[in-house]
């Protein structure tokens, strides 16, 4: 049985129809981003992969069968009420990175600033259509929704047409793809045969689609027949390579490492050396998943550290390490998720369950203020007794009484609230934001690969849900940290996939201020065996994160889990932030890790590692050098 992931859009239908009835094929249809996720996480053997995803994953073989535009495509457009060169911000549907990258390249080529970092807001397709009512906003619309808005906006750029006009080459949106070397002759024959059948059935497919929508068939027929072709010939391959090169030059994608299997004897592209990859990463160039994995596994500890240190210097004041004076308050330990790695939670009704009273909280918060603290990190279990009004009151009270920054409520808690109150995530976040929420902590990310999440925290949100909360938070102007807890059942490949997901979202929103990682802290009370661990792996992981996350400004050293000595050494492996003076950290300390430090000790350690130390706030703005 071959597991195939395909795309449900009309333009892909000719490639899919012949596979649907094939008993040797298990066919999944979904949006392009989900197709890419499946191939990345080993959930399928072959995927109709957007070419941007092929570059991001790296070491991918493409078949010469895909979705190719040789002129106007109509289904991938930028629409606006303003002329395109006056487009200042982009609203985009992030379900296809290829189209997003293409839009950014084409707008940049036309002199629009909208492609620049920080001017992109990601939305769902119908939100894009709403957003472009505003002047100065361009909306990237992909797939069938693009066909629906035809003729409704005065300024429209057909991205297929734009590319073909500018470069003289066809544009390849997607192609059948597999991990390097995984295409067999049998699979190739099957996919080609299906494509031929589909080609013959184009008119019928368009008619059926039109009928389903109750619309005239002619424009869908012409769309499939004229706008889209399915063969990657010489010219199309040249177009593909040019696109990937331009995207790499703009640092939107890693340099391509894809091969197109147009002949049986297609040569594998030469592999860059580990040294070349280190050099590229140190200089701020983008690494594919395959390249990141190679460095993570093959580069020496020192080479990784030196490259990460160089990358860190590109982001920050090279001689400064920051920290924040804050406190981690776990407002309740009552939780319904029962994660296997957690020794902190108590089930509903358990006698050891608590919700902190205002009195206890107030005392803790006053201590933070007295110690010169500027923030609290407020997290807790998923306690069904606490309603959204309780949170709103709490945040307003803290803001009004203590004036502290509120780094509060991880995505899991936000989702829990949305479900409890039957509200959408955006509404929950908007209400909490209005009540004083400043940023969303990145806790609960664990590993953003669902195989891992199912194994260690079945009741928790999926990776897509976690990322969705962060996307929404960022769009509302909230900031957040990104985290990774590894060292349970996760593989090196899955850790890299996690980093890629954070990087992709950061490309869209720019909302992550910093990244922290740590290994799972095993202790009695948790029900899961430790996986990969140790200080050397910590340093390697932190360093590869610094190199992969080329668009995240800060990386923190997790001294709470690694201890002050390793935390100090980690400053040489890409970290520029010491996290916080922690008054308490209930979750980690119930699992036995109880490193504690005051500001004087932190400053001494940082100085003795050779850096200046500066206090910061939750947005990583410097608050000046402590006396």
């Amino acid at each position, binding site marked *: 049985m071959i597991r195939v992931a395909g795309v449900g859009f009309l333009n892909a239908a000719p490639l899919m129809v012949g596979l649907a009835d094939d008993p040797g094929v298990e066919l999944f249809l979904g949006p392009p981003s989900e197709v890419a996720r499946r191939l990345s996480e080993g959930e399928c053997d072959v995927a109709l992969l957007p070419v941007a995803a092929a570059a991001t994953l790296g070491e991918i073989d493409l078949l010469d069968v895909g979705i190719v535009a040789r002129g106007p495509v109509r289904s991938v457009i930028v629409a606006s009420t303003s002329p395109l060169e006056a487009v200042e911000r982009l609203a985009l549907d992030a379900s296809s990175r290829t189209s997003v990258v293409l839009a950014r390249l084409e707008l940049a080529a036309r002199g629009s600033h909208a492609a620049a970092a920080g001017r992109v807001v990601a939305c769902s397709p119908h939100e894009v259509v709403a957003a472009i009512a505003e002047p100065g906003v361009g909306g990237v619309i992909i797939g069938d929704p693009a066909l629906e808005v035809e003729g409704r906006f005065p300024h429209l750029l057909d991205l297929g047409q734009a590319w073909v006009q500018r470069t003289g080459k066809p544009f390849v949106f997607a192609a059948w793809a597999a991990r390097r070397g995984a295409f067999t002759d049998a699979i190739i024959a099957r996919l080609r045969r299906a494509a031929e059948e589909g080609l013959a059935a184009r008119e019928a497919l368009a008619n059926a689609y039109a009928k389903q929508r109750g619309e005239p068939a002619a424009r869908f027929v012409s769309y499939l027949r004229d706008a889209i072709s399915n063969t990657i010939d010489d010219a199309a391959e040249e177009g593909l390579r040019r696109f990937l090169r331009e995207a790499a030059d703009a640092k939107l994608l890693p340099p391509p490492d894809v091969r197109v299997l147009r002949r049986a004897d297609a040569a594998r592209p030469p592999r860059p050396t580990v040294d070349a990859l280190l050099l590229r990463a140190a200089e701020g160039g983008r690494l594919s998943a395959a390249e990141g994995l190679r460095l993570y596994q093959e580069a020496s*500890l020192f080479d990784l550290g030196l490259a990460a240190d160089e990358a860190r210097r590109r982001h920050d004041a090279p001689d400064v390490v920051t920290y924040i004076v804050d406190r981690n308050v776990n407002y309740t330990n009552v939780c319904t998720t029962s994660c296997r790695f957690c020794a902190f939670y108590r089930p509903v009704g358990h006698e050891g369950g608590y919700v902190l009273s205002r009195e206890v909280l107030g005392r803790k918060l006053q201590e933070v203020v007295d110690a010169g603290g500027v923030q609290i990190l407020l997290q807790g279990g998923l306690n069904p007794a606490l309603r959204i009004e309780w949170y709103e009151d709490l945040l307003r009270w803290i803001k009004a009484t203590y004036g502290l920054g509120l780094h509060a409520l991880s995505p899991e808690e936000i989702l829990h609230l949305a479900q409890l109150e039957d509200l959408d995530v955006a509404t929950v976040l908007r209400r909490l934001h209005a009540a004083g929420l400043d940023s969303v902590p990145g806790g609960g990310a664990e590993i953003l690969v669902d195989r891992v999440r199912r194994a260690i925290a079945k009741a928790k949100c999926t990776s897509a849900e976690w990322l969705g909360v962060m996307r929404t938070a960022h769009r509302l102007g909230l900031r957040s940290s990104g985290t990774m807890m590894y060292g349970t059942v996760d593989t090196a490949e899955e850790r890299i996939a996690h980093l890629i997901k954070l990087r992709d979202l950061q490309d869209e929103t720019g909302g992550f201020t910093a990244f922290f990682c740590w290994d799972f802290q095993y202790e009695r009370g948790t029900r899961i065996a430790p996986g990969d661990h140790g200080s*050397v792996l910590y340093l390697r992981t932190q360093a590869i994160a610094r190199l992969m996350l080329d668009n995240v400004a800060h990386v923190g050293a997790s001294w709470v889990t690694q201890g002050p000595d390793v935390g100090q050494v980690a400053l040489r492996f890409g970290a520029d932030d010491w996290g916080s003076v922690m008054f308490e950290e209930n979750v980690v300390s119930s699992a036995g890790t109880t490193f504690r430090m005051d500001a004087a000790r932190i400053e001494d350690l940082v100085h003795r590692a050779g850096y200046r130390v500066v206090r910061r706030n939750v947005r990583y703005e410097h608050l000046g050098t402590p006396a």
Partner: protein
Amino acid sequence: MRSARFSEIEAKVRADARLDERDALALFEEPDLLALGALANEVRERLHGDRAYFNRNVRLEVTNVCVASCNFCSFARLEDGAPGSVTLTVPQAIEALRRKIDPAEPPTEVHVVNGLHPGLPFSYYEELLRALRAEFPYAHRKCFTAVEIHFFARHYGMSHREVLERLIAAGLESLPGGGAEVFAPEVRQRIAHDKATADEWLAVHREAHALGMMTNATLLYGHIETFAHRVDHLLRLRALQDEAIAAGRGRFQAFIPLAFHPDGNGMQALPGTTGVDDLRTLAVSRLVLDNFDHLKAYWVSSTPKVAQIGLSFGADDVDGTIVGETIYTAANKKAPDGLTVDELVRLVREAGRVPVERDTLYRVVREHPRAALEGQFKVRERRQGKHLAVVDVVHPEGSS
């Protein structure tokens, strides 16, 4: 980042030229910690490849009564009968060891160090060694620091040689490296004024080497000493090792830098060492002590996590299971009490090295398969100059 001076030193190391005092000092002051570590790692891998040694050892301290008053010590109680003072009889000592020993995992070494007790007869130590030999014949007896040997010589009116010969006759097999502290007189005077001087410590080891014994050496760093004092210390050890190698009998096997822990002793106002200092000291030691075979990242003093990184900063040994350690324990060490063989094997593997269980004399007891952890360290590339020298492919199922 790296200094121009460092590049000169790097060239010397690669040409196998000996580093001098100025070089050593420059290494302690080198701002680029990773360049320093990488160079030490080159030497370490040249000597030992990916192997990292450990042994199964058990500790015994028969008395903490001590006539010396070292400022850094949280262990000794000055007078017999003072609160917390302990002196075991020989049968008590044997019983204490029996309790520490897991018969399923018998130690290959028993490591005995003590306070300088003024009230015990010399025969006590001879009896102790004979009893150890009789009760635990499988365990190598590595007993008494040079400071103790020197104390015995003074206290019982013998030469170093006489003391050593009588103890060897009773079963002594090698000397641990303790008591070296810092050799430089201006430091030693302030932290350990009333025990063996540097010259006396070195004289005992010279004598032990002449008698064909293997010994170790230590440095207690991270208190009031300067980098220059550390360099002086390393160079004195290196000079004595040159003599020992020329004489062709015994010699130093391993150098063990010991991080000072400022808890419960006369110097607790000092800040103590940090991870960066621990790694730097390992790396410089590896580069300067070019005639020492082994360098230990002693996990009890530096914590297991720093010791793991130390295995990439020049160290090739993590010491052993260390059942029953009390000296760092008295200073509130940050490390756990004792590790099992499984834990040590895991510690070494997590650091990307191949665990090798050794005996006291570095003979291989058991090579553990590399058993790569999921996803880690598939291939190791080694940088030499501008070129990458290949490559050591690791097979997940076993040693390469």
